[in-house]
């Protein structure tokens, strides 16, 4: 791997309408790395990647987010996107009056490239429809990844990219995610990194993700090798991690005095 810092999150605290949803998150990612965030519903996984993207109503009240060495706090969503941050929404809104074609045109994306990528994802018949207008769950996921393929971000934020899709779609989505993360290149040439939020872990098999985290109540309770964490969660739920996290918290509280 190249080793250049891609994303640095330091002691990040995020609030929504005065309520703390992320509490002291630390994360450091280098180019080519994939970090995976697990956690029960409502633990703050989506909040984390939405806060990185700068989406409302997530308000950073403490800490920092640096992308390629520069703070992106205070930058509007579109500037973060143009710098190279790309988000695949878990539940994208329907934008009835804007088609993928129109969006591509507005972004200056070559029409032939758009058509080819759409066809590759089986979305050729959807590019002139309103975005997410009547799309099935699987079509929404494919549309999100298609937009990221066109956008070519340097930092990918994938919010449950595989949830609610059938086995065939999962194969296709996994292949696209591997391509987005340059899994076709030798490790040292990979420059794209990202965070994957997942419930099922089924996209992780061939990705060789770098690090995994378990987020509970807005805090990272444990971290380690993603597949190990996933296996542990599959076997025992979040119990072991919670116990580990509580010990860490106690040590943390003790050190803080």
């Amino acid at each position, binding site marked *: 791997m190249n080793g250049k810092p891609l994303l640095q999150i330091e002691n990040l605290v995020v609030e929504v309408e005065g309520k703390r949803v992320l509490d002291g998150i630390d994360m450091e990612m280098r180019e080519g790395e994939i970090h995976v965030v697990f956690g029960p519903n409502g633990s703050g996984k989506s909040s984390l990647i939405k806060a990185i993207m700068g989406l409302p109503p997530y308000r950073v009240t403490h800490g920092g987010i640096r992308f390629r060495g520069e703070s992106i706090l205070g930058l509007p969503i579109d500037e973060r996107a143009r710098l190279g941050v790309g988000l695949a*929404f878990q539940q994208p809104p329907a934008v009835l009056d804007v088609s993928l074609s129109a969006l591509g045109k507005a972004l200056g994306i070559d029409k032939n490239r758009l058509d080819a990528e759409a066809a590759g994802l089986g979305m050729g018949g959807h590019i002139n429809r309103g975005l997410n207008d009547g799309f099935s769950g699987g079509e929404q996921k494919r549309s999100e990844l298609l937009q990221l393929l066109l956008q070519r971000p340097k930092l990918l934020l994938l919010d449950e990219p595989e949830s609610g899709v059938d086995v065939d779609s999962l194969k296709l989505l996994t292949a696209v995610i591997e391509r987005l993360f340059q899994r076709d290149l030798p490790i040292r040439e990979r420059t794209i990194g990202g965070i994957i939020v997942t419930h099922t872990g089924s996209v992780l098999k061939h990705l060789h993700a770098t690090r995994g985290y378990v987020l509970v109540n807005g805090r990272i309770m444990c971290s380690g090798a993603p597949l190990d964490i996933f296996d542990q969660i599959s076997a025992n739920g979040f119990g072991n991690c919670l116990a580990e996290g509580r010990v860490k918290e106690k040590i943390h509280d003790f050190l803080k005095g």
Partner: protein
Amino acid sequence: MTFSKDKLDLSRVGYDESGETPRSASFLLEDDTASVAASKERDLVMDSMRRARVGHPWVKDLEWSLVDPDTDEFTRLVAGHDDPAGNFIHVLERAKIRFPAQSCFLLKADRNEQVLHNIIVLEPGSELHLITGCTAASYNNAGRHIAVTEIFVRKGATLTYTMVHDWAPEVEVRPRTGIIVEEGGTYLSNYIALTRVKHIDTNPLVVVEAGGTARFNSILYAKEGSFFDVGGRIRLLGEGARGEIISRVVAAKSTVISRGLIEGGNADTKGHMECNGIMLDDQAVIHAIPELKAIYPDTELSHEAAVGKIAGEQLNYLMARGLTEEMARSLIIRGFLNVKIEGLPVSLQKVIDTMIEQAMTKDVV
């Protein structure tokens, strides 16, 4: 007789003077003088009403048969006129006119008043696409356009009537329109108004007989200081009649009343209405008044309406792809207005696309 400085205005409303776009007939009224009235088709008469009253005396029997002269002060004004100007269009029986006919009403003299009475007759089994552009000369700031139009779509005939309005900020527009669609006939109305105007109120009434169809499709962009009271009324009188009213409204520092009434009055009648509006600022008012009236049990009427500002989550979504907020807003509005109208000639679709682009670049971005 045309003036080069007005040429742009006329092409902006779909009236082609160059001859490059195929047209079956042309009519140009400058204030109250018909300067062009010509048809290339034997089965299509395109003339001024003043000449038609002399050459086709039966036309006088049609006047005021669909619009009550006592409707309001504007119909009374037209009725009180000795010999109002206007456009007479007559398509003979079973004639299917291949290329669109075009007419244009130009307010040329400043502070002038255009008082018109138009008659359009499509005989049984005939077909016509009529494109009407209404506009004011570029130097014209004020004026009034008052027009009574009566349209007769005879048995099995089809009229597609596309009207593009491009007025001036101080112009008042008062069209009063009545339409009859006879058995198995079709009347499709496309109304496009995307530029500033002081006041437009129009609420045409179409009566649809057995097996007939009427559809109103309106695209409005009400700009600063404009007042629109625009709608359509469809009375489904005959068995199996169909009606549809679709309107898309964008309002910025302006007021729009968007009306629609569908009355189901016979067996197996169906009507549907959609009123959608986008508010661009807190000085805009959109008042959607969709009305359904069933006076016969076996009728099926429905409507949906949605009015509001652009949803923040839609803007954020597009911004997450790299568009600025202004670009995202503009893209949504452009898509909202850019409804592809079925059967519209490519040249006119281009005119509408251009108007939308110009409207967007001037106001939204």
